[in-house]
């Protein structure tokens, strides 16, 4: 069955430190891959996406993600975290254009001073 796994439920990092959030998926072909961020009490905002081409994609707010086909992974990274990055992050996967998304359970990021 198709699935999306975010292994880390909670992550705590110090402000200024680097960040990596993990996402693994189980799909037959290369799916459409997304990262969304949700601040408390807010809706979901798209950070970045990957469909094909260059496997390192840049997004908003200084985030980037790398698609690794051999590992079925699409990990999100940021070189230096800011306090405003504290939020919940969701990895999502779709089979094709227009298909509904299958979400991971999310990773909650806490940023300490």
């Amino acid at each position, binding site marked *: 069955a198709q699935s999306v796994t975010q292994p880390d439920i909670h992550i705590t990092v110090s402000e200024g430190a680097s960040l990596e959030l993990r996402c693994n998926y189980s799909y037959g072909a290369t799916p459409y891959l*997304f990262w969304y961020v949700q601040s408390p009490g807010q*809706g*979901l905002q*798209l950070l970045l*996406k990957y469909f094909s081409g260059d496997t390192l994609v840049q997004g908003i707010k200084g985030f980037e993600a790398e698609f690794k086909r051999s590992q079925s992974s699409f990990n999100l990274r940021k070189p230096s975290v800011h306090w405003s990055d504290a939020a919940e992050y969701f990895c999502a996967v779709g089979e094709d254009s*227009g298909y*509904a*998304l299958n*979400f*991971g359970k999310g990773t909650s990021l806490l940023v300490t001073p």
Partner: protein
Amino acid sequence: DAGITQSPRHKVTETGTPVTLRCHQTENHRYMYWYRQDPGHGLRLIHYSYGVKDTDKGEVSDGYSVSRSKTEDFLLTLESATSSQTSVYFCAISDPSTDTQYFGPGTRLTVL
């Protein structure tokens, strides 16, 4: 921001009552979706629509129905609300020019 609104934004209701949530878009996109968000579960698909009067079930459709009589509106109905349907409900649209889903602000529903 994509032109998606949801109404109501908050609702408290009692077990057994019918509830309808509305999603309205100004983008004229064909594809629309309803998800629910619960702690520890991420977002799960309830129903989706590929056009007017063209809807289908998602992963957690039991207890929910939908209707889409106009491109811009996608309604989610709980025929008889239960406490297990207490959740935050998000509507989304898919923009075919970017192959990306955009989400509404959500509706927080509490069933007592």
